[in-house]
């Protein structure tokens, strides 16, 4: 096993991990801001990928426009769901939120699956770099992996600016920390809930677009979101950077496990890791390093 091929495996692990991390980010964002556990982030991811695909192939938009419009449409869809269905029922009760979002996810998956064009063929988003490879000091890296990593880094930078520098971002953070105090400071908590769901749906859609060149676009691609839960737990459940870092870590560990361990163990590693983390570092890795319980 040479160092170069190790770099290639690591790059693919980081790229997969970025997708896990983005989905985990969307989950944690919604959980922190609204207290609701969303079990439909995977379906939002799938719907986002299909929306972009439909805008590009059926409506004939150029790919860049289709991506922007598709992600915006998914954000609007998230806001709409919050305003119509989720707001009225979701409280701190996890069971209600889990069942409601799982049911909504089934509706989305079933609705897409019922469209013959969507379910009967495998689709690829024809991104310009798909299938290319990049030579980096002897290592041959897949262009789509690099694109995923670069896009995720850019998105993380934009989100950091949003949460640190803009009024809406600060209000959203205030609302996540303490909704009552935020309301006293003049933050409209219901509007922040809508914003959180819009951002969560939009982020999931971005993850879907980034995942599209790596896997195919199909109605069950949302299953990838199951890996977002260990990523969120690894990051401490309430930390946005932690969720992203947890996702990347998980992607790398998974890639290495695929290399070193027998077939099938790779798929279980994230969940074993999650149970071990809950047992040993219940506050997530970051808190464990700082020595906080």
């Amino acid at each position: 096993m040479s160092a170069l091929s190790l770099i290639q495996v690591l790059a693919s692990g980081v790229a997969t991990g970025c997708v896990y991390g983005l989905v985990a980010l969307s989950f944690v964002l919604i959980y922190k801001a609204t207290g609701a556990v969303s079990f439909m982030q995977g379906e939002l991811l799938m719907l986002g990928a299909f929306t972009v695909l439909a805008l590009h192939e059926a409506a004939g938009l150029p790919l860049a426009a289709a991506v922007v419009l598709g992600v915006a449409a998914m954000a609007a869809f998230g806001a709409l769901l919050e305003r119509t269905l989720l707001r009225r029922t979701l409280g701190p009760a996890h069971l209600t939120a889990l069942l409601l979002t799982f049911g909504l996810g089934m509706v989305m998956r079933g609705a897409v699956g019922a469209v013959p064009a969507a379910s009967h063929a495998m689709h690829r988003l024809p991104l310009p770099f798909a299938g290319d490879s990049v030579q980096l000091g002897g290592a041959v890296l897949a262009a789509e992996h690099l694109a995923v990593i670069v896009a995720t880094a850019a998105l993380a930078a934009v989100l950091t600016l949003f949460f640190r520098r803009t009024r809406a971002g600060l209000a959203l953070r205030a609302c996540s920390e303490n909704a009552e105090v935020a309301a006293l400071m003049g933050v409209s908590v219901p509007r922040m809930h809508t914003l959180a769901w819009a951002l969560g749906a939009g982020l999931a859609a971005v993850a879907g677009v980034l995942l599209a060149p790596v896997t195919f676009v199909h109605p069950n691609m949302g299953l990838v979101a199951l890996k977002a839960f260990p990523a969120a737990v690894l990051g401490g459940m309430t930390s946005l950077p932690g969720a992203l870092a947890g996702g990347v870590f998980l992607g790398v560990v998974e890639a290495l496990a695929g290399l070193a361990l027998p077939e099938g163990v790779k798929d279980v590693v994230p969940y074993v890791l999650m149970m071990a983390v809950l047992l040993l570092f219940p506050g997530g890795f970051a808190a464990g390093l700082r020595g906080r319980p």
Partner: protein
Amino acid sequence: MSGSGGMRGSRRAGVPAAAVAITVLACLAVWALGADYALAQAAFVTTWAIAGLGVIVVVGQCGQVSLGQGALLGLGAYAQALLALRGVPAPLSLPVAVALGAAGGWLASLPARRLGGLYFAMSTLAFALIVEEALVRWESVTHGAAGFAVPPLALGGWVADTSLAQALVGGVALALAWLACRRWVASRLGRAWRAVREDEVAAAAAGIDVARAKTLAFVLGGGLSGLAGALYAHWIGFVSPEQFGLMLSFELLMLAFIGGAQHLAGALWGALVVVALPQGVSLAVERLPPGLAGAAGIETALFGAVLVIIVLLRPGGLAGSR
């Protein structure tokens, strides 16, 4: 507790009403569907109700979320099926299935027992996904993803291979599970569960060992799931890993939610709905114009829509007072 007197009164009035309703429903079912079909469905309803009791102990009584009940059913089902294949009689293999379910419940809840809340959902989810993968991969024992056929339930020389016998066994098992649950719920442990559900800090201040109460809920709920899984394997006659996936866990949560998770009777009502609903959805899809593509997708979407509507209309469950 000022509400307890009123609750007891309504429960007394509720039992005959429920008995009448079930008798009427049973007669209707036999009349409309034929005796054999109705009895086979009754066997499934009783088995689902046992699994529902397991969920109600964890979710309704103790107030914790479990996403791994489906996998616990799977453990019970595989234990029973594999032992039955090797000719072990049911009186010996059923306790093994129950014990395996209970051990699984303990293991699944172990990482989160001091954290609670959402962490139980996470750790039980992880446990369920690990179990599912193990059932697929451990081919030498579990026959892998293809699954295998299960012989009928044998009690000594008597083999439960007719619908009547299966419904009888299911009914007896449900009655025993019900009695056990009633004892637990009325005991010191049951009061500890409800105290934990209402307010963990207050429960701990009152001297309740919160972590122990939660662990016991998962262990006892897991044992009931193991029993339900063991019977289910015989009734359906075939086990494969995908039967015991995440979907089953959510169906069981839905069962408890529909029936009203805080009362034991909710298990039976929920089981009736959960057995009837997929068949109703299939019937509805069959009525659609033939040749329509994507019927499977429409079925999934309809099922999800029913779940959404139930949660929206009755956030406290169908049997719940509010």
